[in-house]
């Protein structure tokens, strides 16, 4: 059973790391600030979600597992809110302002 869980952890965390890599590639390659925001929020959220899911079987207690999920949810929430604020500011004042 623990072997299955370890394999799950390796797969999910690796996939999460790949998404973080893709998000960073997007951050470097995308042409302007707004498109870069897409790369940061969406891809990195998925990456963090996969890493969280991958680490869940490795936690020693339920409390720790719930804490991990809460960290993920808080990052999602702050990402969803802050991205809009940054995007709104760029739309109004331009990317250099």
């Amino acid at each position, binding site marked *: 059973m623990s072997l299955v869980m370890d394999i799950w952890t390796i797969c999910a965390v690796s996939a999460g790391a*790949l*998404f973080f890599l*893709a*998000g960073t*590639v*997007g951050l470097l*390659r*995308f*042409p*302007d600030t*707004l*498109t870069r*925001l*897409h*790369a940061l*929020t*969406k*891809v990195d*959220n*998925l*990456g963090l*979600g996969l890493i969280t899911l991958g680490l869940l079987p490795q936690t020693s207690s339920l*409390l720790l597992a*719930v*804490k991990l999920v*809460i960290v993920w949810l808080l990052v*999602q*929430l702050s*990402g*969803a*809110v802050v*991205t*809009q604020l940054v*995007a*709104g500011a*760029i*739309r*109004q004042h331009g990317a250099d302002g």
Partner: protein
Amino acid sequence: MSAIETGNKGEARWSEVIGSAAIRATGFFCFWLVLTRGDPGDLGPGLIAAAAATWASLRLFPADQWGFRPIKLAGFVLHFLLQSIVAGADVALRALHPRLPLQPGFVAYQAQLPPGTKRNMFCAIMSLMPGTLPCGTSCDGDLAIHCLDVTQPVVEQLSVEEALCIAALGGANSDV
């Protein structure tokens, strides 16, 4: 547990407000317990924090405004998770694609949800959906949405999402 059918839009009854406050306070306190790992020395501040959070939450989300429907909400959360996987994969593929297939631009979207908390919530959800990023409201009241690919049927997709959101969180005002 009990999905209260608030058919009449009137003032929320006190029992409802107190029930809602109790559920929220319990939730916040559990949240605190998780964060502090149930350390007994932190229980006192936790009670104060939970009370303050409940007060703020009742101010920001009055109990009568939210007709949560638990089953539809669960379905919506599942749909949202699937959509964020699609969103992440979509942007990741575009980022790694050798020719960088992007058609970025703005799309105006007329939201059905009235300006306020519910619309803000929809915007937050939208910003994690594939290809769309809300950038505030334009002067004529439409939402300005930045899209990675304006050739996609963005407006149609958004109205489907908004309908799902309304079904899960309660109507634009009191319908359905």
